[in-house]
Structure formats: C-alpha cells, structure tokens
C-alpha cells in the first residue's frame, strides 16, 4: 500500500518553536512534584545515617525511639535483607545497612511517625554501636589497602573493576608517529545538585497493591528493584515517576529511601512519605566520578593520529551503582570525533568510603574528553599547528566504524567547527589577545541512547501506546519521564506531526508502570531518539487506519490521503475531506476501537568482544566550543566571558528546547570547569567538606557566561525525523575549552578541574620561578594491568571479536 506518510511535505510541528505541553503548569505552581503530593493518614519517614565512614554495626537499639509518642514503625536492615543495585553485576546495596556501613551517610535505620519532627526526634533516639574499620579515602589508599575490603566482590582488594582492551597494535602506531606525547590529568568529582531534593510517597492499599510516587528518572528499574527487595509480584506494584525537579543523572538509581517508604507503608498500612534534606541529597550522590587519567598519543607531523593509549582510574565511592558502565565510558568515545586507527584502553574502578559515584550528565565521558582535548591542544602547540586545524583535518568519517567498533552515522562536526571558527572570530583572537585574555577550543561527541539495555533482554527499549477516541481525542502513553528536558512534549510533537493535529490537542500520560508501556528511563540521552521512534511508529500505524477509512469514505485513492490542520483530505482536491475527529469515527466504525502501539529497539552494534556493550549508540551528536576568558594573574580568578558552541542536533524537533539544552549543558560544564567539586576531609572521617548549597559552589547569574549557540542539522537516518541528542553532549567541550583558553591567556596549563583560583595561582607562581607553568597530577600510580583483550580493527579486517587469549600470546 502506497501510504502518503507526509514525507517531503512542509512540516507543521517538527522544527517549530512550540511551547512545551507542560510549560504553563510549571509557571503557575500547578505541577505536582513528589513532595507536593499528600495523602490522608500519611506518615513521615526519616532515615538514620551513619556518622562514620567505615564500620561494622555491632548493635542497633531502637527501644527508646519506639517508646516516643507518635512513632508508628521502625525498621532496620534485617527487615529488607535482599540486595539490589542498578546493574545486574552490582547488586551490592541494601535499603538499610545490615552489618556494615561504608560511607558517612549510609542509612542504618528508618522511622515512620505521625509528623516529620517526631520522626526526626525518634531517629536521634536510636542507638547504634559501631566498630570502626580502616577508612579508605582516595584512589591511592584504595590501591594500597587491600584489607579490609569495602565489598567482598570485585577483582581483588578494593578494586571493583579492571578493563583492558586493545584495538589494533598501538605500539606499531607509536612507532610510525613523528611525535608521541604523554600527559596526565585529573577530573575532580562533582554532583548533580538538582534543585528538587529526592522525595517519595508510598501507599499500600486494602487490596495489598503498592503504589510509589517518586522523583525518579528510571521508574522501570525502581519497579524491578521494589519487586525484588520487597518480595511481592511486580504486577502488584505501581511506580509513578513524578515530574523531576532536575535530574541530570542523580535520580537514575533505585534508592534506599524508595524501598524504605514502600516497606514502611506495607508494615503500617498507611501512606508514608520521605523528603530528603539537602545534606542527604549529597549522600545519594551517584555523580561524576573523580578520574585520574593518563593519555599517550602518536601523531604525524600534520596531526594525524597513529595510535592512542588511554588509562583511567576511577574513584567509585562505596557502591557499584552504574560504575562498571562508567568505567567503560571513560574509554569508549575517544574514537568517534577524530580518526584513531589504533586504540588501547585500560580502566580501573576502586571502592572508597565515600558516597557512591554514578552517572552525571555525560556519564563517564566528560573526564576523558577533558583530558583528550587538553592533550590535543598541547600536541598542536608542539607541532606548530592551530588547535582548530589539528582537529578539523582529521575528523572521523561519517557513516564509518571506529577502531573500537562504534558505528558512526551522521557526523556534523566539520560544519560545527567551520561555523564556530567564523562566529567566534577564532583566527583573529587565538594567540593574539593581550596577556590575561585568551580563547580556547575543544570538540566532543555523545551517544543518543545506549545501544544495549542495562539488564540483558531482547525486548524494545521504548514503547508507546496511542489511543484515539471517537470525539477526536488522542492520548499518547509512554513510560518515559519528563525531567525538564521536554520529553512529554517531544511525544506530543511527533504524534501531532504525523496525525496533522495540534500538539496541545494531545493528552500525554507518562511514567506510570500501570498505565504506560515500558521505556527504560531518562538517561543516556536516549529519550528523543528512542521514544520518538516509538511514537512515530505508533502514530504512523494510527494514520494508516484512518487513511484506509477516509479513503473509502472520500472515494479518493489511499496515496492521496493527507493529514493537516486537524483534517484528513484528498491532497489533490483539498476541499474533499473530513475533520480529524470524523476520520477517527470512520476508522472506529470500520476497525473497532482505535489504539496502536509503537516500539523501538536499537540496531545491533558491530562489536562482539567482551566490553562491547558500552559505547554503541544508534547515533552520535557532535559539539564544538570556543571559550573566551579573562584570567586575573593577581587573584587567579578566571572569568569566562563568553562561550560559542556549535551542536550537531541532526534535526531539531523543537529548536527552543534544543537551545535550552545547549545553554544548560554549557552552564553545567562551566560549573565543573571552574568551581564544582565533591570534596572530603580524608583525614577526618571522610566527611563531606560541605554538603550544603551554601558551600558547594555552583554558578549563579553572576558567574554564568554569555552563550552564543549555533545549531547544525545533519539528520541521522536512525533518529526520528533525523533528530539526535542534545541533553548531555554540549556540556563536554566546555571544561577543556576553558583550560585551553587559560593557557592562551596566561600560558599555564591547568590539567585538573575545577580550575580554581588556588590552582591558577600555583601554576603562575611555578612559571614565574622558571618551572613548568602547570597545575595537575604528576603521574598515575603503578597498576598491574591485565593482558588486554586484543581486537583487530575493522581496517585490519576484524570481525568485531577478540582474538582468543592463547592466540594473543602466540602473537606476542
């Protein structure tokens, strides 16, 4: 059937700056966040958290707390003995610690009481006897101290994960190079700091069904974790993700407080709510891993890379979380921007007695991107090349497969660079501004959704259900959760485009495990591409039913039936048509109730080696940025005046939302570049130095720079209408662009972010004394790296599989 799918017709919704479908509610206070929901007879929960970083729990005495008037229930770890965790390989968390605490903030008991004050008072009456264990506060300590182990699983001692992969022979590549350079970098950990503290409300009803409302980015994974830990059928659990008041990756794990309120609701048969304090949000963390990195690159005189070897050591904190994936991500995307014919990656994740690290905007990739782009700046200088040219002349080709088996689709980085150079006046500025002022350049790329699911299965990553009613109403249902990025709106825009109606005609129901088909969640920049494709399929299927029915009624050939402006009509005779609502009546009369579904599964990636699961994506977005900075050599204060950024979005579904994500990404990158850090007192109980918004510095309006954005549209065949991601990618080039600009301004290399005034001053002082004008780590600790899995590259005729270990030895 030659269906007229509207391709080639002017678009009425996609690419247009509609407001978000939920925008007005967010401006009137009507949006109900998790803590805004209250139920009759509701109790309040508080979690008692460990004041020590590493200890055995000898005893917990709740008797005094139990006697306090208003206390309804108290639970401890033994009430929920089944472990959970986001990754199947890291089921290492308990809702409340059973026999051991692993960081200051690890919860040991929980109280449900008639009000928050009583719960707080009761919490302080619980007596816990701890037997302290040696604390492990840093990468160095975790490598040195193998006993006590923070966890009984992992590689050995406090090493959680070790990875070694080699694609092609890097030594051969280094031998061919005209210059081989090594550098060391450190990227300090930082946190998401969503303005909404995590909150959850659980209700166990008379039919023994549990409902949890929670500020989560991953209702599906919370659903799975609750079923596992609570021991009740998933079909009796309903998880409703409330609109997230900011996520950035910080609400992507199943959390102890979600399990705790569910358990307390089951025990008390009353609704139980918890709202974390800001201090507790710092303990939930799952933010940016601190990563120590070493990079060695061989280049030809013209800057062409012959080989790259990258090592990263991650300070993982006290639990696994997404850490195994994070580790692989620190080594995955180095190859998708510039042509890297041979590539070796070694990665290590350690357990330490600090809040667990996990995914923050850019998940595991801003750290290596910072290292790579600062490293390339140094190589360019050494070769006497312009930092732009060394990149622009050696881009990874579009529609190619990298040495580490990532399939690149559309690749608009060249266009991004060209437009950026012109708009920023790079050529007139680089190396030519007065002392104290400088420009820096960097590029980056990010995935549009992970190619593989978190738990192994062959089902779709995203599902959409569409319901059309006979009065013309359209309801789109999807498991995705809007965390502010506008995912609810994207569903409405895409359905509206296909069905020729207005996005505001559509009712959007999302993130409710009872009502919506599974979507894996709002992480890995997957939502627009994956839910968008699912919505597109569901809408096209509905369009087909309406087309057939309308064609019969209108006596017009099927291929002529078109949809626009709430009408279904003969495109050759536009007067002949019916209203959209009438078309639904015709279709319902012919076919019965009109409902369609759509789903999306990413294409299979070409990598077949162990570890090939992290990095593949249906598409890659690209960004390039120029930062212009002012460095005060007296105070060390760096002021970023302006950032120009070009982003290859594939196709904007809504340019206003794309601009908002670009600007927000630049903002968050600026905070990481200049001030944000999770810092601990290693010698004093590994307490967080400042678990509050007063002292955890983040940019206000006064620190935020001006942003000039260029959108490049290089449509990707895998994206809905060609769309790619924008939620995370634009953060990535910002930290390296800033440190490269500092070098242009005052001639010092800040190889460690955040680039605080202290570090800038230290480097300036060192330079003034005739030493290297640099601040950063001096080396990386010796690590017993395993023999790498050797994978021949596509250029070498590889099939994506590793050479069996025996053969690899023979080769050696």
């Amino acid at each position, binding site marked *: 059937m030659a269906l007229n799918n509207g391709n080639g017709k002017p678009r009425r919704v996609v690419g247009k700056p509609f407001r978000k479908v939920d925008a007005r509610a967010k401006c*009137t*206070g009507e949006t109900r966040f998790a803590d805004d929901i209250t139920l009759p007879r509701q109790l309040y929960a508080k979690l008692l958290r460990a004041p020590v970083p590493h200890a055995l729990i000898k005893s917990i005495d709740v008797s005094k707390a139990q006697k306090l008037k208003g206390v309804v229930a108290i639970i401890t770890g033994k009430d929920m003995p089944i472990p959970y965790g986001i990754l199947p390989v890291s089921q290492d968390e308990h809702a409340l610690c059973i026999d051991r605490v692993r960081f200051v903030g690890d919860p040991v008991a929980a109280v449900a009481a008639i009000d928050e004050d009583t719960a707080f008072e009761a919490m302080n009456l619980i007596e816990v006897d701890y037997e302290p264990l040696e604390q492990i506060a840093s990468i160095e300590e975790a490598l040195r101290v193998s006993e006590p182990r923070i966890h009984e699983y992992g590689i050995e001692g406090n090493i959680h994960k070790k990875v070694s992969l080699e694609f092609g022979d890097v030594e051969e590549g280094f031998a061919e190079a005209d210059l081989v350079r090594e550098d060391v970098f450190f990227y300090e950990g930082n946190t998401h700091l969503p303005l909404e503290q995590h909150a959850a409300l659980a209700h166990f009803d008379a039919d023994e069904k549990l409902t949890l409302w929670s500020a989560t980015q991953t209702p599906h994974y919370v659903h799975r974790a609750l079923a596992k830990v609570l021991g009740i059928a998933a079909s009796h659990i309903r998880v409703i993700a409330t609109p997230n008041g900011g996520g950035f990756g910080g609400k992507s794990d199943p959390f102890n407080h979600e399990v705790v309120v569910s358990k307390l609701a089951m025990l008390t048969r009353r609704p139980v709510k918890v709202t974390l304090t800001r201090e507790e949000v710092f303990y939930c963390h799952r933010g940016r891993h601190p990563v120590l990195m070493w990079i060695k690159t061989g280049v030809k005189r013209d800057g062409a890379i012959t080989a790259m070897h990258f090592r990263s050591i991650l300070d993982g904190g006290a639990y696994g979380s997404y850490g195994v994936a994070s580790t692989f991500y620190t080594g995955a995307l180095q190859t998708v921007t510039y042509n890297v014919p041979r590539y070796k990656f070694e990665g290590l994740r350690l357990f330490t007695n600090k809040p667990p690290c996990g995914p923050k905007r850019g998940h595991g990739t801003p750290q290596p991107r910072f290292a790579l782009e600062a490293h390339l700046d140094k190589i360019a200088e050494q070769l006497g090349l312009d930092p732009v040219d060394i990149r622009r002349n050696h881009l990874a080709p579009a529609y190619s497969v990298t040495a580490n088996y990532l399939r690149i689709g559309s690749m608009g980085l060249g266009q991004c660079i060209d437009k950026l150079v012109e708009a920023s006046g790079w050529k007139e500025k680089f190396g030519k501004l007065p002392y104290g002022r400088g420009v820096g350049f960097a590029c980056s790329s990010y995935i549009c959704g992970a190619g593989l699911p978190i738990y192994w299965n062959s089902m779709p990553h995203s599902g959409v259900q569409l319901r059309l009613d006979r009065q013309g109403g359209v309801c789109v249902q999807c498991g995705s959760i809007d965390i*502010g990025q*506008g995912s609810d709106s994207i569903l409405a825009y895409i359905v509206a485009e296909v069905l020729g109606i207005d996005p505001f005609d559509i009712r959007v129901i999302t993130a409710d495990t009872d009502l919506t088909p599974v979507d894996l969640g709002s992480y890995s920049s997957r939502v627009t591409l994956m839910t968008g494709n699912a919505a597109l399929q569901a809408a096209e299927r509905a369009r087909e039913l309406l087309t057939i029915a309308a064609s019969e009624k209108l006596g017009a050939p099927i291929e002529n039936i078109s949809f626009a402006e709430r009408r279904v009509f003969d495109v050759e005779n536009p007067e002949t048509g019916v209203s959209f609502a009438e078309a639904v009546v015709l279709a319902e009369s012919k076919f019965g109730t009109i409902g369609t579904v759509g789903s999306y599964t990413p294409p299979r990636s070409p990598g077949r080696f162990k570890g090939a699961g992290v990095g593949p994506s249906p598409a890659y977005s690209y960004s390039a940025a120029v930062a212009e900075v002012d460095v005060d050599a007296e105070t060390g204060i760096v002021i970023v005046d302006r950032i120009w950024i070009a982003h290859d979005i594939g196709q904007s579904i809504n*340019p*206003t939302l794309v601009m908002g994500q670009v600007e927000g990404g*630049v903002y*968050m990158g600026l905070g990481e570049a200049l001030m944000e850090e999770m810092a601990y007192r290693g010698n004093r109980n590994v307490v967080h130095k400042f678990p509050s918004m007063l002292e955890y510095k*983040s940019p206000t309006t006064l620190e*935020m720079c001006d942003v000039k954005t260029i959108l490049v549209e290089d449509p990707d065949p895998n994206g809905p209408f060609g769309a790619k991601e924008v939620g995370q990618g634009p953060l990535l080039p910002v930290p390296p662009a800033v440190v490269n600009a500092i070098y242009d301004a005052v001639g010092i290399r800040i190889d460690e972010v955040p680039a605080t005034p202290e570090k800038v001053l230290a480097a300036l002082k060192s330079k003034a004394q005739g030493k290297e004008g640099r601040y950063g780590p001096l080396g990386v600790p010796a690590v017993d790296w395993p023999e790498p899995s050797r994978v021949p590259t596509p250029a070498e005729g590889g099939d994506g599989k590793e050479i069996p270990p025996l053969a690899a030895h023979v080769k050696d």
Partner: protein
Amino acid sequence: MAGRKNQKVQIQFILNGEQAEVAFAPHKTLLEVLREDLQLTGTKHGCELGECGVCTVLIDGQPILSCLALGLDAEGREVTTVEGMATAEGLHPLQETFADLGAAQCGYCTPGFLLTAKELLEKNPAPNRDEIKEALSGNLCRCTGYIKIYEAVELAAARMRGEQAEPARESIYGIE
C-alpha cells in the same frame, strides 16, 4: 515537649489578594505554613538555608526567602505566591514568556524566579541585562543556564511596557 509543640498560633494576613487565616505550630517557617497548612505547594524547598531561592515569595511586594521566615512573620502582611500571579484574565506576562521561551525546564526553581522578576519589573520596568542578572542572582537554576530566563524577563518587560515584542530569532534558532 510534644504538648507544647502542638500548641498552635493563629494569624490573619492577605494571601494572594484574599483574606486568610491559618493556625500552625509557632516554630513553623512561612514555607512550611504555605505548603503544609495552606496546601500552596507551588512554593518549593531546595536547600533549607536561604541559598537557592526556590522558596521565594513576596511579602508586601518584596521578595523574601520563606524558608528563613517564620509563619508568624506574615501576620497582617500581604503575601504573594506563584499561585497568586495568574488571574481569571490569564497568566501574568512573565508566566507567559517563561512558558513560551523555555525558561522553565524542570520548573522547580520557576516560582521563585517569577516572583523575584515580578518585583524587579514593578520597580524597574526596563531593566538591562546586568540589572536582571543582579536581581536574579539569589535564585539558582540548574537547568537553563539562566539565558532563557533573562530573555523571558526582557520579553515580558517589553510587553508590560505596551510594546509589541516578539522573541529574538537568535534565542530560538541560535546564530545563523
């Protein structure tokens, strides 16, 4: 302790233009009274120490941090929350432009920004970019990078001055 804590105080004040009366435990902050005793959950909490600005409300037209004020402080005063910005005639111009320009992403900080901006525009109908930054510097936003917020305030200001203003092409499509 429990007995004393439960002894409520009662106050009268003007809330969003209407006479209001509410009883609450005297230690409660204005934020808690608004959210818990008056069910006006549009006012948010974020940091508990007056740093983030999401709890901003207007008292007698001035922006204050309701997490640092006691409920008792509202006695006899005029309090405006985000719920009081729209009228039967429609949204406040700031609400309109924040929604249209994407100045509200997750929306959690939005009520605080709206009220702070409202006071700014009442005081200064034509603020320049630096004056807007200065006025909003006590409100944190983690989503937008503030740019769309500035643009929304500027557009609303122009419209409130009676100008036929539209968003700049650059703020929607970027630079060409």
